[in-house]
């Protein structure tokens, strides 16, 4: 085995990043930052008035308190019944949902963390996940604690979702065009042109990598690396061709024949067309977009900054930039929502994106980037630190926007 090896997330695991459904928590995770929890609870040990416990059964929904001061509330819901249950905090009209936790299996506990302004509400447990639920009145008094605005501006969310779908579609179209050109050059034996086009085409794949990976059967056909193969598995796609174009690191490599080249090139073009067909009908939700942004940074951290993705061509920094591009587009689209709900997080992520980009820009050469081999160990460490710096607040984005 001459190829790189690293633990690669399985397709199933990576898909999970996009498959998550939105839950209704309305509030950003409080920062780890100090001193947010130094207001001692009024009632002693268990007396935090913003901590409410809910005992849900098949017939009952026992809420430890019927009121709380405004601010960040936590409902700790325990399902003591036999049916799968849900818990909601509803506005006074009994319709608008401020927050929900769903799919709580028997015996399990889950927290609903949200910020509620003063007003009248209803709590509701929904054993069996059907019907109106078992409701009780719940009051939030004015504590003077300025809570983040509750509820989501549906218009902002719809716009974000629509724009992201358009971005994915546009990137896919560019991917199709450039993959066609790349495959044509490669099949025709124009190696110089193919090498030039390889990173330029892959940029469009890497920008939407988490989406592409969500179609489980396509990713292994198109983006598998040699080290990821099972014994006996046929190797196709981008990296198979990459090795043929840059065989310098391979030992005793036998170049592909013209006929083989044509087969692999046609296969890549066809799979790309299939991807485009699937993307056309794809829609996205804010949690998918946010998880996708985080997922793209995870890709950078595990595969690109380590120089493992483009083992043969050493064009990892092109992919690095493309992953960051995609993550940033996802974030930028969500900013109107984040700015409403957690402006501090919005600022932090924005600053860290900028810092990472400034670092990446130092390694530009021509239309692209220097070879991964040109990076010193210190430069790789700098990039890795900047990725970690961004990925940490980005991991809190989903909870802030759902």
């Amino acid at each position, binding site marked *: 085995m001459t190829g790189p090896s690293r633990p690669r997330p399985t397709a199933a695991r990576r898909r999970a990043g996009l498959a*998550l459904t939105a*839950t209704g*928590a309305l*509030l*950003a*995770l*409080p920062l*780890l*930052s*100090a*001193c*947010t*929890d*130094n*207001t*001692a*609870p009024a009632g002693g*040990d*268990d*007396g*935090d008035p*913003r*901590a*409410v416990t809910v005992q849900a059964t098949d017939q009952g929904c026992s809420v430890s308190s019927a009121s709380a001061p405004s601010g*960040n*509330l*936590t409902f*700790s819901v325990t399902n003591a019944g036999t049916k799968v249950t849900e818990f909601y905090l509803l506005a006074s009209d009994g319709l608008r949902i401020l927050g929900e*936790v769903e799919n709580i299996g028997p015996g399990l506990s*889950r*927290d609903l*963390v949200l910020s509620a302004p003063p007003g009248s509400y209803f709590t509701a447990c929904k054993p069996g996940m059907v019907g109106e639920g078992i409701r009780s009145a719940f009051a939030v008094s004015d504590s003077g604690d300025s809570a983040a605005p509750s509820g989501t501006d549906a218009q902002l969310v719809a716009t974000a979702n629509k724009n992201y779908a358009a971005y994915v579609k546009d990137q896919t179209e560019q991917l199709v065009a450039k993959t066609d050109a790349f495959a044509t050059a490669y099949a025709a034996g124009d190696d110089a042109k193919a090498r030039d086009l390889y990173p330029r085409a892959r940029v469009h794949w890497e920008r939407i990598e988490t989406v592409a990976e969500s179609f489980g059967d396509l990713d292994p056909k198109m983006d598998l690396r040699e080290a990821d193969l099972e014994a006996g598995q046929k190797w196709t796609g981008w990296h198979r061709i990459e090795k043929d174009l840059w065989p310098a690191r391979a030992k005793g490599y036998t170049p592909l024949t013209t006929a083989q080249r044509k087969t692999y090139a046609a296969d890549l073009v066809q799979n790309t067309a299939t991807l485009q067909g699937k993307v056309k009908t794809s829609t996205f939700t804010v*949690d998918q977009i946010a998880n996708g942004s985080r997922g793209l940074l995870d890709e950078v951290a595990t595969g690109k900054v380590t120089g493992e993705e483009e083992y043969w061509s050493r064009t990892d920094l092109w992919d690095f930039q493309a992953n960051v591009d995609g993550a940033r587009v996802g974030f930028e689209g969500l900013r109107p929502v984040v700015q409403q709900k957690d402006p501090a997080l919005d600022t*932090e992520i924005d600053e*860290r994106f900028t810092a990472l980009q400034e670092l990446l820009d130092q390694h530009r050469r021509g239309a692209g980037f220097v070879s991964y081999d040109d990076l010193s160990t210190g430069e790789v*460490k700098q990039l890795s*630190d*900047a990725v*970690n*710096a*961004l*990925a*940490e*607040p980005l*991991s*809190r984005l*989903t*909870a802030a926007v*759902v």
Partner: protein
Amino acid sequence: MTDPSTPDVPGTAQPATRRRARDRGVSRRGVLAGAGAGAVGVGAGLAGGLGLGTRESSAAQPAPEAQSHPFYGQHQAGIVTPAQDRLHFAAFDMVSEDRADLVSLLQDWTVAAARMTQGRDAGPFGATSGPYDAPPDDTGEALGLPPSRLTITVGLGPSLFTVGGHDRYGLAGRQPVALRRLPHFPGDNLEAERSDGDLCIQACSDDPQVAVHAVRNLARIAFGRAALRWSQLGFGRTSSTSTSQATARNLFGFKDGTMNLKAEEPSLLDQHVWVPPGDARSSWLTGGSYLVARRINMTIETWDRQPLREQERVIGRSKAEGAPLSGGAEFTQPDFALTGRADQPLIAPEAHVRMVHPDNNNGVQMLRRGYNFVDGSNGLGRMDAGLFFIAYVKDPRTHYIPVQNKIARGDGLSEYLQHTGSALFAVPPGAPEGGYLGQSLFAS
């Protein structure tokens, strides 16, 4: 930052199942023990530091793994605290040049460290609570584990103040004269990736997983402000820092640190460990100390081939008891003048015990707190093993540098040693409740 659960009264148990929405970092044991009554008394505090000498007899002490040391106090814990069995040491570099980031990092570390040393989760929600769409604010591998006498000690390196004359955070005027990169010593073979650092964390615990959990969570909190530079695990203590502890052995098989400074010797600690009130540059460090870290590889395979005679000659003590070769028992003072046949001294001129004895070093002593390490093996089939040496001193210029120069030149033991890592840190005094580690450095 009031933390009503901080136990600072010996033998005081805290309930294990307290649960507050904004403060879920309850005792990790409570999480697994469920909401049962009869909470486990995991929080029973030991008297920290200097109070140890007055501790009552062991009658009502909880099991050692259930004990915790107070975090807040005059001095940082983890110095005179009875040495725990395990170490995870980590050095960090700041990746932000913003002074506010440095301050907030020290604040956040202080809060999280105070929680974890009491056996609680790193963050207010804990490892299994909080918004379902957010990563938990604690990593979780210490769930169900008791405090295990965890201490977390934070230090500040010379490069935090100035790098190449550049004043990074407006602290150059407060860089103590003694806080300079250690000089090159004869025989040093230092690796940059095992040396230096802007900040350090020494996490000691009787449970290795608890120590690793502490460093991991503090590293996570630091992302974007500071990044891990190097880290070192130590699996067995080589020093005792209290008269209540037996002397441990290093990987040469000898008792190490017989003459170590002990918590029960407050006047000696004042004389050798704690930084006294000083000039404007170092006044913020009063009550703190300097931490010398040296990764010392031992060529143990070669050592193991030496006759017992040679091993004892090099050390200057008996392998069995640790008694000086001039006679007596472990704690008998060595007699360097005593001679045997042919008028040769019983303790050889190059014996380690002679080289490092205070009588031969202007009376200076160190508080050593080192740990044995084995970091796998090398390509030659030899263990990458040795001593991760940690010493706390009031001034490295008088209490470490001259001694190490002498050892490196003339100590028979040096033949079996190679120093591969080196760092010096200023360890600020302890924080009062509501304050943070290093706060005095930033006071105007």
